[in-house]
């Protein structure tokens, strides 16, 4: 199974491009998609899920152009859009029955999968309740249940953990990892730890362009050995910001802990610390020319 894009572009206005020249190759496994707001993640996902037509380029599923033959993807797709809606007067079970019919599942298979997805998303006790009584987090889990319902070969999920409490977030991440075998999963999120703990490769978009697409470890290697932390007086934070890529600041009683990326220790008291994917992501976005 392979999802590919070739010079994919989407133009919204005369000089406004949602994405431009995106060339990707995604094999089985989880692929994280990161980028700042407006980077083009949702546009890319819209095209991959066939709800949007590209202006330039093409996308292929196992060699078949999905812009020409969208049904190739639609038959094996699980999709959780960022703006996910439900029918408020249906119960959870009725809604999943509806999705199963849309996704082409046979009755018996649908019944079995509905049971499993309700348990997977921990919604057993509310299965007979109308969706309008669900909280935001519960609705998000309904979205995840419907996306996984047809055991999709291609799963595209946009911000799946938004609105979930930490415990449910971990459970969802486990669910994605445990069900990712034999399928291509495209996971778009702002929450870097979600990608760090689940994804095999990471694609970073910025301003509609692909900054990098590489295994998570390779992206992490970019900054390994270059991340430092030190505690400085508040007035010294600004000069450090001017000179180095500051990843985070935490105010403490004895000053401000500054985490930054530098080739050499930025101050005499700076300690080298373990790099995280968030450090690497910030480095990629702020210095795309070095990727």
């Amino acid at each position, binding site marked *: 199974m392979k999802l590919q894009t070739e010079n994919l572009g989407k133009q919204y206005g005369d000089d406004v491009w949602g994405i431009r020249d995106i060339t990707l190759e995604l094999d089985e496994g989880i692929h994280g998609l990161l980028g700042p707001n407006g980077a083009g993640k949702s546009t890319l996902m819209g095209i991959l899920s*066939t*709800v949007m037509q590209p202006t330039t380029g093409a996308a292929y599923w196992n060699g078949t152009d999905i812009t020409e033959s969208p049904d190739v993807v639609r038959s094996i797709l699980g999709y959780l859009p960022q703006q996910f809606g439900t029918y408020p007067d249906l119960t959870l079970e*009725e809604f999943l029955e509806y999705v199963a*019919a*849309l996704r082409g599942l046979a009755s018996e298979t649908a019944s079995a999968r509905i049971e499993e997805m309700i348990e997977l998303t921990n919604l057993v006790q509310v299965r007979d309740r109308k969706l309008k009584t669900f909280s935001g987090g519960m609705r998000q889990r309904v979205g995840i249940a419907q996306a996984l319902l047809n*055991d999709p070969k291609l799963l595209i999920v946009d911000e799946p953990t938004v609105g979930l409490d930490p415990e449910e977030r971990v459970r969802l991440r486990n669910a994605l990892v*445990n069900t990712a075998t034999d399928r291509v999963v495209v996971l778009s999120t702002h929450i870097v730890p979600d990608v760090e703990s689940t994804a095999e490769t990471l694609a970073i978009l910025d301003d509609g362009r692909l900054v990098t697409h590489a295994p998570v470890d390779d992206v992490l290697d970019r900054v390994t050995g270059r991340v430092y932390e030190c505690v400085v007086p508040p007035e010294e934070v600004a000069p450090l910001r001017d000179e180095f890529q500051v990843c985070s600041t935490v105010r403490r009683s004895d000053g401000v802990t500054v985490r930054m990326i530098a080739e050499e220790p930025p101050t005499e008291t700076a300690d080298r610390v373990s790099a995280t994917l968030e450090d690497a992501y910030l480095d990629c976005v702020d210095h795309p020319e070095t990727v």
Partner: protein
Amino acid sequence: MRRAYHVARADFLQRVRSRKLLVVLAVVAYFGYLVNVGGIELAYQIERANGLSNVHGTNTAEFVGLKTGLTGAAVLLFAGFYLMNATIARDRQYDLHRLVASTTVSNWTYLFGKWLSNLGLAVVILIALGVASVVNHLVHGVGPTEPLALVGPLVVFALPVGALVAAVALFFETVDWLDGTGGNIGYFFLATFALAGLSAADGRLPESIPMWARVMDPLGQLAVYELTVDALHATVPGYHGGPPSFGTLRATETFVYTGSTWPSWIFAQRAWLLVPAIAILSAATIPFDRLGSEGESGRRGWFGRVLERLPYSAGAEGHDAPASDARPIEAMSFTTVENRDAGSFWRLLRAETRLTVRGRRWWWYAVAGALVLVPLATALPFGVEIVPVDLARRLLVPLVFIWPIFLWSDLGVRAARHRTTDLIFTSRYAAGQLLAEWLGGVAVAAGAASGLIVLFVTTGQTAALLGVVSGVLFAPSLALALGTWSRSSTLFEMVYLLLWYAGPLNGGSAVDFVGATTDSTAMGVPFAFAGLSLLLVGAAMLRRRHELG
């Protein structure tokens, strides 16, 4: 005041940047053409030896101005409400209402701003009509083109109507049970009823028309009567039959109106419309719930509150098992899906029918049940004739084909309204889903008409039966087509109500799509509408195909 201005400005900008407004303005501009070429006419009906004759004014700037003014007032009275009535809903759709609710902006200021925005929309519509009228008078008019004479009546007649309708639309939005299809239907009758006072002027000259009738004249037809009657008398001496008719009239004789002095009572009467406008706007602050849907549970009424206490729907934010109590994912096994092409259209149809029927209030189902049971009881073999068959045809048929409008108005817009479009469009059954949605609407229509169908079958009323079948097909088809193309239920509600009012309710044979009159079935009107239904479904499918790319 500054805050109200900014509420109005933001809302108004959102409106004028909509493509739908361009369509509305194009239609209004077309009216500006029609008033200049006689497509929209203002004419007195005179009794001649060979029957009634329509006498209209020649298209001088002054006469076209009066027609333009009345046209603007009529457009705002009948269509303005439907164009204006989503101003609060728009804020709720984009969660702006929470932002507003968390500020110190008072309900009055917020609603006043919204009213100004509604009024701004009315002004834009009137400007389009005014410009079109002036331009078309240059091309088609008689005599010199006087911009003031052409546009002045718009300000006097139509603008106050805009102010009043702007307030009414806002009020309807703030009252829970008036917000939506029920309110849209209710307003249609309210607007129609508002013209009822004109009948008091029949057979009278302007000076003998009672004061209350003048006060209650929303469009300004009595003012036009007073302004033009002297010019008419020059051609038709002694006329005293009442105000001129206004609409698409075929006129055969003419009189010349080149303007006259406007009596001051006309300005006072038009300005008076602002009084109910302000009163209604003030009244809207009472039911207005600035928290929107968050306050829903408090607005459901006693029946809703009882239902809320039942175990089925207990609590809006019920609890499920904490994640820690759930079975570990590693311990779960999942069914493998091999066949993803086994979707059953019947399951889809069942789901769509369920979606169509669900979510109404108890009284809707009670009335729908009565509309089925009454004709059924009439059809029973033991002779309990609750309603004679003829009366059933004239009374129950129109009722059966208006009541489900609450359900049909969802067709074609449901997915967009509930943000499930992506879910449907990424499936392989997007076209089948639309067909199932339509058939769900047809099933509802057939269910609502089932009592009548049994009655007409058992009494051998074949023509009436065909009319009902036509209605069963046509109503959901129109809803689906207009819903998919306009992405709103309002257009369907407006068009369907007009058709239903003119045809099934008032016996206009040419548009009696349900065969409530014997004339219409004799003319084959239901057959034509049944055929039109197929075209409408085709149009909806075409739209879906276009959307799928």
